[in-house]
């Protein structure tokens, strides 16, 4: 299976572009903004201002190109490494920061944003996307659900059950496997003996597509097609996007223990942002001044988000009791009282 590719490494078109120049510029800016978030989050983590953080550098095109194919009211169900995709679909940066600061309000996007909080359990969330899309279908809406997950996640039984349900009920689901080569220290080739992940689709009577995930245009094109199929009621698609995790698994991981540094060289040449920049440069839709502007707008946006997130006072001690059910039970109220009494005793 050859991956779908539209831009070569030098940014030259190998086929027809699925996007006009203005749209490409917009998605380039989005990738730049996402990278600014990623770098900022890593920096904040170093300063102890965020908890453990999972970098996505190198994977911007998968997430930005994939999510760009959605309609604003479509559902997105993604993972801890998918902040860029979630933001594309309306999840605010400050919510994303807040979650990584360890605040439950980070899991709560504004009304109308149909994006679930990032899934931390590997594998369990894809079936949620199946159920969301199925529900939309049952009530006559044409919303679709897209779900992102890693190569490692395909080993979990829940991946299989989600794919099987999507196949059987022809749910409007787009499965995007972000194959970044690693699941923590486990390389893709030791995760499963199948040559590609895309071919697994065949086990579910579903089309599987392999795409160069560091090619924004190819990624958008295959996602657009899959979203179209789903929206037209033609069922689900599995997209395997080949990409690479340029950083460690998280800020708590030491990738040097299992990955030779020079394996990254090849992937640096395929950087998804650089590639689109080369493309735009060739078509004269790029200038240094414009990119400078994009970068500084992004930086300001990210800084403002950090400020908003950090500006939110933490929950009071009893808040968990209020989040457990629609209304706290008598017993939870009693537990709250006990907590506050004991805190008083401590203070």
């Amino acid at each position, binding site marked *: 299976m050859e991956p779908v590719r539209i831009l070569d490494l030098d940014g030259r078109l190998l086929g027809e572009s699925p996007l006009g120049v203005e749209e490409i510029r917009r998605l380039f800016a989005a990738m730049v903004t996402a990278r600014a978030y990623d770098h900022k989050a890593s920096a904040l983590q170093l300063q102890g201002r965020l908890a453990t953080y999972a970098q996505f550098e190198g994977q911007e095109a998968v997430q930005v190109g994939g999510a760009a194919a959605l309609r604003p009211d479509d559902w997105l*169900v993604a993972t801890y490494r998918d902040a860029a995709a979630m933001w594309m679909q309306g999840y605010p940066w400050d919510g994303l920061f807040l979650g990584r600061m360890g605040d439950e309000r980070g899991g709560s996007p504004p009304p109308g944003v149909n994006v679930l*909080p990032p899934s931390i359990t590997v594998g369990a969330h894809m079936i949620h996307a199946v*159920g969301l899309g199925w529900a939309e279908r049952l009530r006559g809406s044409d919303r679709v659900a897209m779900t992102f997950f890693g190569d490692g996640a395909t080993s979990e039984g829940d991946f299989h059950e989600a794919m*099987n*349900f999507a196949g059987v009920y022809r749910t409007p689901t787009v499965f995007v496997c972000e194959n970044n080569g690693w699941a923590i220290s486990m390389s893709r080739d030791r995760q499963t003996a199948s040559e590609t992940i895309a071919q697994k689709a065949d086990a579910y009577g579903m089309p599987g597509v392999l795409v160069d995930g560091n090619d924004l245009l190819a990624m958008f094109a295959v996602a657009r097609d899959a979203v179209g199929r789903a929206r037209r009621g033609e069922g689900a698609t599995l997209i395997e996007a080949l990409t690479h995790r340029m950083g460690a698994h998280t800020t708590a991981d030491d990738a040097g223990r299992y990955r030779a540094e020079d394996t990254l060289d090849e992937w640096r040449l395929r950087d998804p942002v650089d590639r689109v920049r080369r493309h735009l440069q060739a078509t004269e839709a790029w200038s240094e001044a414009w990119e400078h502007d994009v970068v500084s707008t992004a930086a300001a946006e990210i800084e403002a988000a950090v400020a908003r997130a950090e500006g939110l006072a933490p929950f009071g001690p009893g808040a968990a009791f209020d*989040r*457990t059910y*629609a209304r706290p039970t008598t017993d939870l109220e009693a537990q709250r009282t006990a907590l506050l009494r004991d805190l008083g005793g401590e203070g």
Partner: protein
Amino acid sequence: MSVMNMARALNDALAVALAEDERVVLLGEDIGRTGGVFRVTDGLQERFGEHRVVDTPVAESGIVGAAFGMAVAGLRPVVEIQFLGFSYPAYDQIVSHVGRIRNRSNHRFTAPMVIRIPFGGGIGAAEHHSESSEAIYAHTPGIKVVAPGTPAAAKGLLLAAIEDPDPVVFLEPIRVYRAIKEEVPEGRYTFPIGVAEVVRAGSDVTLVAYGAMLRDALQAAGALEGDGVSAEVIDLRTLAPLDAATVVASAQKTGRVVAISEGHRTVGIASEIAALVQERALYSLLAPVERVTGWDTVVPLKRTERHHIPGVGRIVAAVRRTLED
């Protein structure tokens, strides 16, 4: 009003919910054409269609996970898992997702759904078919656990569970399905979740039971009456949140409590009852709270199952011990 057994009463509740609320969808293995292992969904697919009463592949985690997605999207799914032992592959979905999305998203997303599961033994079924592990779900934050013991309560509680804004694990006592008949009101009505009922008043000892054990508790109370012992019987109905107030009030009155559960003894529902009663009524206790439970073994197969499930004999013996103390 008509007289019906619990399986019929539950079927009736589901029919009412499906008819009145188009958000209600049923999912499960073999619930459509066969009407489910215990025929609780009998006729519902025919009446409401394949899109609302959905036969699924054999994949419990997938069923619960898909229903979770549906609930988040605004439907009211009611899942059937064939036996409590087959809910275990769905354990992660139930605990990590169904029970948590409200907390994870600070109320932004919720999963109002019901997971119906037949539970308990007594019919000499195959391995894994006689589980009574309700304690593990009662220990789980964010879900409610309901376990009716009679047809009328079953219908009222199931309709309440479907209406509830939070997810409910709804446990149906297998050996009661067809064993008890009683008057069940027509149409929609609800029994409150989280409220236990004193189903028999007494003054010497309190028997706390739920599900299939309620019958045994009532029979034990009857037997004890002959011996001049007045037993109060409480039907817990909801295991989480537990109606501690009703149990504790009765304990304060009688001074003796026998906590009955078919589940394993250690860290079981009866342990919680004992902990609660000693916590809030220690100085009223005339004897230790007795736990009458299944043992800490796998439920034995048909030939010796009867030694595992507590019966009237063991309840009466426990009451006698509280009176001796």
